[in-house]
């Protein structure tokens, strides 16, 4: 049993967590970051670059910058394979018990794996535990896991990252469809929020497909297109020329003769159907798997959508000295998550000041 003391403990080593450590370091505050997995970077580690003629500002490569900066910051210590099991607050200090996780043999050059049960004493805690991608099996009608050629956006992303594009029959598809808002803006699931990033990443992936496989036709089934920055708005009209934008949410995806068959309502309200070589489901962001456990452990509120931390303005939660950064607090993009950590770090630093002042006054 080891005991470490640090002003701030950060849970989660995705872009938000690493950025929180850096934001604290920039303020001169040391921290310990505990990541439950073997490596830092979270989901973004598996993302590909979506630049075509130029960078499309997806933000994925900022992870490289973050890790390079983290390496040069002695204030931040990184622990991998460390999961928080218990927490209690005593005399203004959080005592968090970290348990080592099974080693998957994929060490991170920056992070030191947790060797044994460790108690961390910290004045403030930042939760940066990320999100859970929506599991499309819950929307059985989209045929995921059942209809060959239906995959998640994350799977498509990984495939494109390898420079590969294959559809239902193992061949490069003649046509690709994206279905948006899978698991978001969905009353039947109770997910009454927009995931913010999926319009952007889907159309960026569509651009990548159009560049690498220009013969492939791309269809974009959507309700609305969300904004993704000024240059994105400028690029939208061009995308509309290269990509078929269909404003309709498909009713069903079934196995057709030449790949997955998508049924949807045409502009006249009449049912239509089309077959595609590949159908990608733009899964939304849902609250992190550990949201329930952590909200209990740290006496923390969850917002209406189930994400951590209720006070929208401050990233400060109900409990003392607990702050939330990144997608753990709500859907946001990579760069937004990186920046959002500044707010948590600033608030954590302020709470340290306050505690210091109180201690000084007896």
């Amino acid at each position, binding site marked *: 049993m080891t005991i470490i003391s640090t002003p701030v403990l950060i849970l989660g080593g995705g872009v938000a967590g690493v950025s929180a450590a850096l*934001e604290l*370091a*920039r*303020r*001169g505050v040391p921290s310990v970051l505990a990541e439950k997995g073997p490596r830092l970077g979270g989901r973004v580690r598996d*993302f*590909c*670059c979506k*630049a075509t*003629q*130029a*960078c499309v*500002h*997806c*933000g*994925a*490569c*900022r*992870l*490289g*910058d973050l890790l*390079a900066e983290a*390496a*040069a910051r*002695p204030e931040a210590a990184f622990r991998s394979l460390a999961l928080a099991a218990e927490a209690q607050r005593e005399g203004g200090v959080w005592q968090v018990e970290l348990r080592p996780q099974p080693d998957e043999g994929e*060490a991170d*050059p920056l992070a030191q794996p947790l060797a044994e049960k460790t108690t961390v004493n910290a004045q403030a805690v930042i939760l940066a535990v990320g999100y859970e991608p929506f599991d499309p099996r819950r929307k059985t009608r989209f045929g995921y896991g059942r209809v060959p050629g239906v995959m998640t956006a994350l799977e498509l992303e990984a495939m494109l*990252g390898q*420079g590969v594009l294959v559809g239902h029959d193992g061949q490069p598809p003649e046509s690709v469809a994206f279905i948006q808002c899978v698991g*978001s*803006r969905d*009353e039947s699931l109770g997910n*009454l*929020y*927009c995931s*913010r990033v999926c319009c952007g990443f889907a159309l960026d992936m569509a651009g990548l497909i159009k560049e690498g496989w220009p013969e492939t036709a791309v269809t974009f089934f959507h*309700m*609305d*297109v*969300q*904004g993704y*920055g*000024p240059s994105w*708005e400028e690029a939208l009209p061009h995308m509309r020329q290269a990509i078929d934008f269909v*404003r309709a949410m498909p009713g069903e995806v079934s196995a057709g003769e030449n790949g997955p068959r998508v049924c949807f309502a045409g*502009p*006249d309200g009449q049912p239509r159907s089309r077959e595609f070589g590949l159908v990608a489901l733009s899964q939304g962001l849902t609250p992190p798997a550990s949201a329930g456990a952590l909200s209990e452990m740290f006496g923390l509120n969850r917002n*209406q959508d189930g994400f951590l931390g209720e006070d*929208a*303005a401050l*990233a400060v939660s109900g409990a003392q000295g607990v702050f939330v950064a990144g997608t753990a607090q*709500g859907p946001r993009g990579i*760069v937004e998550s*990186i*920046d*959002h950590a*500044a*707010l948590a*770090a*600033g608030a954590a630093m302020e709470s340290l000041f306050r505690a210091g002042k109180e201690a000084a006054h007896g």
Partner: protein
Amino acid sequence: MARVCLIWVERPGLEGLDPAEVAKRAGLSLDPGGAIPAAVVTAPEWAAPPAVRSRLAGKPAQWLDLAGEVGGGPAEKRLARAAAAVARAAGRAALGTLPQVYTAQPAQTVLVAGAGLAAVAAARQAGLLGHPVILATPFGRAAQAGADDEAEEVSLLAAQLPAQVEVLAEAELRHLSGAAGDFTAELQTPQGAQLKRFGAVVLAPAGGYAPPELGLDPELAKPVADLPPEGLAGSPDKWLQAAVIAGVDAPATADAFARAVEAALALQARDFVQTTLLFSEARVASEGGERRYREARQAGVIAARVAAGGLEVAQGGRLLKWRDLLLDEEVQLRPDLLAVAGPVAAALPAFLANPVLWPAWPQLVPEGPRFSGGRTARSGLYIIGALRGTAPGRARRVEAAAAAADLHDRLTQGRATPVPSVRNTACASCLTCVRVCAHGVPRYGSDAIVCAPAACVACGMCAAECPAEAIAPPGWSNPELIAGLEAGLAKSAGTKAVLFACGQSGAQAFAELCRQGHEWPEGLLLYPVPCAGRVGMQLIMKALSSGAAGIMVAGCHDGNCRSVSGNLRARLRAGETAALLERLGLGPERVEFLHLASNQPRRLAQAVDRFVSTLG
């Protein structure tokens, strides 16, 4: 030339390499212990044991991420690659350290010019970090909110301003020049004008509504914030028709859409009022946006989707016509009340229009992912809030917090900010460096180039372009780079090729491939550079004349350079060199530029393999 020793720090990825053999091949001696004149260490500084670090303090040392340069493959090839990398680093270490020339201390005072949530939050954060802050507001008090700020939130923060924050009321920032650590600002106040030196500057002018150009009568069309008027209600015989416009010519931003939805809900809640919400896209990505949009429709607000640009406005807005996309028919509305969720914008400060002192907006505030958190290309200048187009509320506090931490870090040297050395005796006063530096570091003082003390990011672009070899960030002058090139190429085997790899993209991708055990072509010499922009024509020609058969430069994708144009400059220089080689009959294919991101190792591996194979 100083004698260089190899200090071997064992790291994952170096397994199986014999330190003595690497040292021998590189022509160095292995660390004999005790005092040494200069060293190459096989680990980056942060990963080296403290004893090694303290032993080398003040000594010329090259910290090498050797594991990130060797890669996999047969032992013999790894040994050769390791020896070439160590020799390259030793070539630089042998030159010793160049003394710093300019040692002015960065100014610590922070200027926050503006008002509203962003300005007050930034002033507060910078003050909490210990900086003296001047909050120069055009208004009479600090608590004044911008058009889209929550007035209460701003007052609350303004009441909590730390003691270090001095509020300068009715002040205007007339002129600004300089960069981090050394800004000069002219502030106009009722008491007169004053010139002051600042370490960092945050521009955060308050936003005002910018009504869309739809030909609306301002008597009828009001900004959503001003609605609904007190006591507004219709009657059972005469329902009032209200219309809220939320981006019909072009889609609204998510926060403008959210404001429109709030206004529509408030109007609809009045007795006998029917509200129609007109928009081209439902921009529901704000927090709670989708929920409120649904509530509005459930409350009876009519959601009318208009094709972008498809709203016909007659009689100043008293008659609206559009084609309903769902019903596919023409619809008309005669609103009694019209609310517009116009975007909120702030006026560009006049001094930024000076093309001599300031670059155009897209170069000053690039949209790339590296310029978030209020950062601009000009080191130490932050532009936040409405002027930046940032959504109100939390996004502005986020920006303010990020900007404050970044400026604090810069001004307190938390991040080692290098200061370029200038050889005044060699300088031709051509001002190339002043033009080239995207971060605003060098400027022409009374009779010499002077560099702002906390602003340089060591991209090396000035060094690449200076015709007199008179300026370079520490460690990246031509002599140092050339010594490394010559020494490294001398120890490379097979077909020699040099890969200049940008630290933001190429070098990271290279290191990742090495960790995966990628086997590089035998004679490939990696030369990590801080930015592709460091690689000018001289370096490429030098590499060729030192025995390289080909040179590849791997830099960031167009639009993602940390120094705005280092990648484009490098691509231009590579192209020019290739054209020159063609004229000389030496084969233009020997020089190539590759656009890359740090997360594209596979792309790098393929490009290098193809490139080296064409060299034969």
